[in-house]
């Protein structure tokens, strides 16, 4: 894929930023008990100019809004209402903010920036982060892109702020593929749809003619593995976002489902059912002969690779009820890791490698939880009648899932690892089976 955004930090950094001894820092593990007050005034412009996406002053306001919304959605920041600001930001203030004015509105951190049009019609968004009390600059980054992609530049700015203040990588410049749902329970119409992580730039990928389920991003985010009931033969397909082409994977005799890419994007793990027995297989994305990884009698499904590709977590009812198991990528050394009450399903390995998210069923509820990869340290993050199908943010700090209600309605939600910051993701229709992309390039 063409690199749409190039980081221009090198050009913008006049001096090498040295982290201060007493750093402004957000404790990511503390939840939202005290989100950091942060000011994100409208980005300014060195020269008012028009673009296909609006003029640079309007873009500057919108970029600041996107940055502000991203930071607020993390639950770790509390953007200050711009109506409280005691000062406006001129272009000269971007690099030399009037800090006392920001201290009066109790901002701890300040984000300033600008939008400018370049000679080739592209725009550059400059993004600066300051510690209001120490008056130090903490981050400065620039992003160049076509004007139509201004939201991505804003997300990258928010990622830079989040990253600098939490010590974690960001997750805002990413996308969600999911199943858009509409219609009654008995005649549900399902379509693949894709959108930005914040719900913007929504578009449908399939027309609803065929039932589609469980889309999953490839590591390159350019293809999506999913299951389709096309021709009444439920099988795994790959959708190419660039071309819109849907390709059947392999030529399998039976129902194949629950696909997920390997970390190198070269192969898929999935389930295939045969005669009432479901096992896990691995196959090249180009097809070929599938390699069988499990053979226990029962239902083995929901495979998900560890980020280093060495292990696979999956669910199996071989012991009587659905539980989580981990095996080596070649299928050897299968070990059960879940031992709590109820049933465990849909395990997904965190991109950080440290945790496994899952659906736990029991006591009349479906809940989203996480545990360490050896099964220890289990924590439930949600409590609901129908939470299912977790997917990780690219930085492994947020889990998105779908929440079903009695009667068939369903929508997308996210929750952070503290379990406190639970938010609904806006979608035009109902939604299920979300999959979070890696960070965009």
């Amino acid at each position, binding site marked *: 894929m063409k690199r749409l955004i190039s980081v221009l930090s090198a050009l913008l950094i006049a001096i090498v930023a040295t982290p201060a001894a007493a750093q402004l820092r957000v404790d990511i593990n503390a939840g939202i008990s005290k989100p950091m007050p942060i000011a994100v005034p409208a980005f300014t412009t060195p020269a008012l100019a028009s673009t296909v996406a609006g003029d640079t002053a309007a873009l500057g306001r919108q970029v600041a809004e996107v940055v502000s919304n991203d930071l607020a959605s993390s639950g770790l920041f509390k953007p200050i209402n711009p109506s409280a600001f005691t000062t406006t930001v001129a272009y000269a203030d971007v690099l030399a903010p009037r800090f006392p004015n920001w201290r009066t509105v109790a901002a701890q951190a300040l984000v300033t920036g600008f939008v400018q049009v370049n000679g080739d019609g592209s725009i550059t968004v400059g993004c600066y982060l300051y510690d209001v009390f120490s008056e130090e600059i903490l981050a400065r980054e620039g992003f160049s892109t076509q004007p139509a992609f201004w939201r991505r530049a804003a997300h990258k700015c928010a990622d830079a702020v989040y990253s600098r203040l939490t010590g974690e990588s960001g997750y805002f410049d990413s996308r969600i593929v999911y199943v858009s749902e509409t219609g*009654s*329970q*008995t005649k*549900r119409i*399902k379509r693949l749809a894709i959108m930005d992580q914040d719900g913007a730039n929504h578009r449908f990928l399939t027309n609803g003619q065929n*039932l589609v*389920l*469980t889309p999953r991003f490839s590591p390159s985010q350019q293809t999506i593995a999913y*299951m389709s*009931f096309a021709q*009444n*033969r*439920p099988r795994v397909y790959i959708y190419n976002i660039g071309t819109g082409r849907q390709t059947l994977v392999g030529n399998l005799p039976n*129902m194949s*489902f*629950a696909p997920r890419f390997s970390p190198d994007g070269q192969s898929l793990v999935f*389930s295939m*059912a045969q*005669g*009432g*027995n*479901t096992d896990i297989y691995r196959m090249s994305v180009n097809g070929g002969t599938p390699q069988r990884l499990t053979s226990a009698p029962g*239902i083995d*499904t*929901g495979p998900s690779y560890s980020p280093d590709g060495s292990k696979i977590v999956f*669910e199996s*009812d071989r012991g009587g*009820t*659905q539980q989580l198991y981990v095996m080596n990528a070649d299928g050897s050394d299968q070990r059960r890791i879940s031992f709590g009450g109820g049933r465990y*399903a*849909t395990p997904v390995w965190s991109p950080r490698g440290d945790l496994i998210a899952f*659906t736990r*069923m029991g006591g009349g509820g*479906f809940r989203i939880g996480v545990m360490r990869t050896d099964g220890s340290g289990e924590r439930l993050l949600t409590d609901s009648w*129908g939470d*299912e*199908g977790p997917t990780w943010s690219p930085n492994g700090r947020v889990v998105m899932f779908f929440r*079903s209600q*009695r*009667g*068939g309605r369903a929508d997308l939600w996210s929750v952070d690892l503290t379990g406190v910051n639970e938010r609904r993701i806006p979608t035009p229709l109902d939604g*299920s*089976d979300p999959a979070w992309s890696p960070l965009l390039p």
Partner: protein
Amino acid sequence: MMNTALKAAMVAALVATAACSKKKEELPPPPPPAAPVETPYTPPAAPVTSTVVPGSVEDFIQQAGSDRVFFEFDSYQLDSASQATLTKQAGWLAQYSNVKVTIEGHADERGTREYNLALGERRANSVKNFLAGQGVAADRISVISYGKERPAVEGSDESAWAQNRRAVTVLVGAAAS
């Protein structure tokens, strides 16, 4: 409305007649009404109802008692009622050996999506194996699972779930009326 209008017309006619008769007392009585003309009897149009013909889907359902069997939660065991239904289905299929079937396996909504796909396939295979055991050639039976994607009835309670945990025998190549 019609009746009221008709009555009004008749009353008006009677009044008119009365008024008339008073004035024309000396005239001879009017001739008796003409005898009704006889018309040939036409029986009412007989409704044509569809009827179950041998070999049809309806015949299959009538003979077997049902085209579907139901399962307990997270189970693919066939209870005695299901076995009785399937035995009758197999009997019908023995009669119509040109008919193939697809067994559709379904689950209720109280399971995760991927597992329910596998569970539906398991249920469909339970039925397939039973029918095969009753002498239906295995190559006449195909299976498909819809997991929890195609419930038969709406609702999120025990009664809806019980009806949705099912395997349906769908005839392929039989006359559907």
